């Protein structure tokens, strides 16, 4: 096997390995998103919260990112739960624990949630620490899921087809030229 082929094979193997090792969550959790709570005072804390993606539909996984401060600075040892209640119907609710592991920025806590119904949801962030507890709420509107166009896949596919087309076309042209040369 030639050196460049070895490199191409190792590239494919490496990409597959990386793809299987990197958790899906970490790939998508970049940035903060829309700020829902801006340093809201509750108990001994100030709570900030962001939601990502910026507009959410029923198929999306919602990421709620939370930062907690007290008078000494950021609080890094809190137990945090996010509860989402659909409209005024307590029977329909989703809960998730917000952890540092879920967050890309380890100063923050992050909770993944899926809100399966369109309409208004009330989200409550509950904080528990040795120093005290607190609670803060906000609401957000979930849209009905629409068939989204996977532009990145389409773009990648077109790019791939163009590269393959260029290589195949070039090889066919060269083969023809060689045949013509042999004839003459």
């Amino acid at each position, binding site marked *: 096997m030639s050196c460049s082929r070895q490199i191409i094979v190792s590239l494919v193997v490496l990409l597959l390995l990386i793809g299987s090792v990197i958790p899906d969550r970490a790939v998508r959790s970049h940035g903060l998103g829309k700020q829902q709570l801006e340093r809201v005072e509750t108990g001994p804390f100030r709570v900030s919260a962001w939601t990502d993606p910026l507009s959410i539909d029923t198929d999306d996984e919602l990421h709620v990112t939370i930062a907690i401060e007290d008078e000494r600075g950021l609080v890094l040892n809190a137990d945090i739960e996010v509860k989402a209640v659909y409209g005024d119907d307590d029977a329909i609710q989703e809960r998730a624990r917000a952890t540092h592991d879920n967050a890309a920025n380890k100063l923050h806590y992050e909770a993944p949630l899926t809100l399966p119904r369109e309409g208004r949801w009330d989200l409550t962030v509950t904080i528990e620490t040795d120093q005290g507890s607190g609670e803060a709420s906000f609401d957000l509107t979930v849209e009905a899921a629409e068939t989204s166009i996977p532009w990145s896949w389409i773009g990648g596919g077109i790019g791939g087809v163009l590269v393959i087309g260029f*290589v195949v076309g070039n090889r066919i042209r060269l083969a023809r030229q060689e045949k013509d040369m042999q004839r003459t």
Partner: protein
Amino acid sequence: MDPTFRAFLQSWDWRLDIIVVLLAFGLAYTAGWLRLRRKGAKLANRWRLGSYYLGLVFLVIALMSGIDTFQTQLFFIHMVQHVFLFMLAPPLLLLANPMPFLMWAIPGPERRQIARLFTQRSRFRKMLVSVTTPTVIWFIFAANLWLWHDPNPYNAAITNDFLHDIEHWLFFITGLGFWWHVTNAAPKFHRQRTDAARMALIIMVYFQNLLLGVAITMSPDVIYTHYESVPRVWGISVMQDQMLGGLIMWIPGGMMYLIALLILIARMIDRSERRARMGDQQRRLQLERVPSR
């Protein structure tokens, strides 16, 4: 260890899109380097390979480490990220002269076909020459830098991943354009790439960078209001953070231009000394040839 600093070190955002692109370019460069090395090309030396890898490492750190995840909370970290993206990674990648190596990573028939795009008569080359003159590059570089440091696009980009990625790509690409002229890396289309022209380009870019850095540092008000809405880290106030960010742009950022300028001056002096020495030698030889009366 300070828990905030530990969190900074642990805050990696492994993005598959970035990893795939950087890995593909790293492996393509290595494949081309190995091919040229086997052919005995002097171009394929170890320091070039090292410089290219180091440039890729700076990109990895800028785009996926705590520098990327903390920039939403600290302005000065965002400025460090920008310095990495347009002042450190591009010159290191271009000092490795990547064009021939990337070309040699492509199979022969396709390489020859692509090389046609860069021949003297090629329209593509002519178009590329006209849109990449030092003046055009300077204008795009400066406009891009000032645009993204206006508070409105800045605040928009910091909360929107898509815009933020565009901002970073533009910083990196305009950085590549500027450093391409400075490092004189291939492809060498522009005839007027003399040391003096390159020095003039560096000075022009340096002054607009200096102006922006000073304006941010000296501002009496908070320019980037996004940072007022996020929790403070390490007890740094929004104003202190802004001043620090401006200083990073002003001093370490400016240092890169000055280093490049000093290297070019040193090269100019060295070349003129060599020319003078050669002139002396020729004069001495002529005098020796003249028969003494």
